[in-house]
């Protein structure tokens, strides 16, 4: 993600061509806003918010039991609101403010200080850059919701998410994209395989473990209540993901175009892989399997989307479909944790697969844009492993501490009665469906 040094000559080729002839114009035009690139980034921002509300909230609402449908939607929605305000207050400053020792941003930009309509970042307004990044900071904790769906207290969720974006998301985003040490190390993460998906998946797994299983899991049936909506949500995620991946170029150019294309290719490959595995194993392919595979593919291509070519994308998609399938269908059952909607199985595992394979398929020998001068494929894979490993360990540790603290302070789980009644009624005095 994020080619900040993009010059006008690159961004605005046709004008650039003219500028090249008239060198005096150059200095003046430096740091000028490109309407075309801005148009795409405004659109991408809308697309990524669209992924969370309504996309992800539908995807999740359809998979829980009807009595909890509103609770997951409300969680996605409230995360959107809370992260937005914290972003204005200090999160943007922490993640993308001027770097302090590679660790964190300084707080000069807290409360959006100094950011006006005339502030430019690259060739787009800084407001647009900040908004685009905000949508990533929103979807990451929203993804985590899937892991502990149907049992978390709403108040505990608010505390956990507010603290988590502060102590986990912001630093990790800074390390990789904000000028921090992982980016300096050479970790490649175009649109958030590590920052978004590994991070969300690991936090989800830790939360699922700390909170324990839903009452009755897995003996009692907990069937998805509305897979029609889940399919809609999956479709919205797919479409919105174009903003996520192609938007991460921060420009409407050839890299964005290729990012969109490889996103499509990997997703299709992963969806079909999952579907055929299911078909072979159980004799029937399922809509939920197809959609789950698609999301796994979207996740895995995310870190790679600006770096790999079409065939690399398909390879990544197949790998993601295969590995996430086993994580969800086999590993979860084998280890016995209750990751309700497979936030870890799809996002954690898919993000990891993508992060590592980015190091492989970014290589020009495999159709990628090529690694940095002097870096071998093996070296890059090691760097990717380092980036993923650091994120896993850091995220797991801090998430664990935060959860334990909140549990001690106010309790994490709804009571057994509330869980039985359904969180919609028990915690929100509402029902999702009153159709008769």
């Amino acid at each position, binding site marked *: 993600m994020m080619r900040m040094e993009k010059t006008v000559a690159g961004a605005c080729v046709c004008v650039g061509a003219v500028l090249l002839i008239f060198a005096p114009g150059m200095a003046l035009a430096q740091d000028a806003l490109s309407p075309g690139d801005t148009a795409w980034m405004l659109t991408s921002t809308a697309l990524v918010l669209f992924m969370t509300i309504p996309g992800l909230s539908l995807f999740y609402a359809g998979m829980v039991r009807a009595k909890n449908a509103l609770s997951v939607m409300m969680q996605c929605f409230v995360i959107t609101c809370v992260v937005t305000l914290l972003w204005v207050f200090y999160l943007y400053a922490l993640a993308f403010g001027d770097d302090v020792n590679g660790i964190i941003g300084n707080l000069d930009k807290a409360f959006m200080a100094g950011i006006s309509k005339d502030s430019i970042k690259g060739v787009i307004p800084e407001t647009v850059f900040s908004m685009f990044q905000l949508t990533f900071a929103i979807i990451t904790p929203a993804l985590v919701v899937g892991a502990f769906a149907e049992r978390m207290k709403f108040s505990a969720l608010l505390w956990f998410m507010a603290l988590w974006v502060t102590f986990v998301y912001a630093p990790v985003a800074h390390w990789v994209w904000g000028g921090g040490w992982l980016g300096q190390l050479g970790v490649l993460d175009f649109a958030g395989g590590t920052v978004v998906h590994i991070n969300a998946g690991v936090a989800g797994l830790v939360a699922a473990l700390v909170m324990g299983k839903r009452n009755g899991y*897995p003996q009692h049936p907990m069937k998805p209540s509305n897979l029609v909506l889940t399919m809609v949500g999956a479709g919205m995620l797919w479409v919105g993901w174009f903003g996520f991946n192609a938007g991460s170029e921060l420009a409407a150019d050839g890299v964005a175009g290729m990012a969109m294309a490889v996103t499509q290719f990997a997703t299709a490959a992963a969806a079909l892989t999952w579907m055929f595995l299911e078909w072979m194993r*159980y004799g029937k392919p*399922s809509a*939920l399997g197809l959609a789950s595979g698609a999301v796994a593919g979207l996740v895995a291509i995310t870190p790679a989307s600006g770096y790999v070519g079409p065939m690399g994308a398909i390879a990544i998609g197949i790998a993601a479909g295969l590995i996430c399938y086993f994580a969800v*269908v086999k590993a979860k059952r084998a280890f016995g944790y209750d990751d309700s909607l*497979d936030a870890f199985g799809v996002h954690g595992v898919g993000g990891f697969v993508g992060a590592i394979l980015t190091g492989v398929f970014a290589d020009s020998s495999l159709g990628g844009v090529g690694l940095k001068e002097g870096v071998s494929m093996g070296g890059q894979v090691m760097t990717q492993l380092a980036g993923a490993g650091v994120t896993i360990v850091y995220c797991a540790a801090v998430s664990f501490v935060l959860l334990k603290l909140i549990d001690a302070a106010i309790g994490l789980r709804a009571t057994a009665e509330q869980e039985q009644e359904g969180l919609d009624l028990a915690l929100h005095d509402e029902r999702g469906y009153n159709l008769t």
Partner: protein
Amino acid sequence: MKLVTAIIKPFKLDDVRAALHEVGVNGITVTEVRGFGRQKGHTELYRGAEYNVDFLPKIKLEIAVTTELLELVVEAITRSATTGKIGDGKIFVSSLEQVIRIRTGETGAQAI
């Protein structure tokens, strides 16, 4: 008066209704129920979690009839609801002590 309760396969509803109409039944109350019996159900599978659902969707008909009509009604249902396959359902007959038509307050056979 008798209350005839029939559990049938959902897609047979139209046929049964027509058959009942022929023998002179004009009032029926229908409920969607789930039936559990010898007919086996289906499997649902979500991300590897397999659920064996042994309840099947059925339709329950309740028909208040005069004792004279009972035989005909039972026969009409039996004839029209049968497919010959397991799960065709049951008919239960019980006694009704009183029937009242709410609108008019009529009672007994007139109220049916």
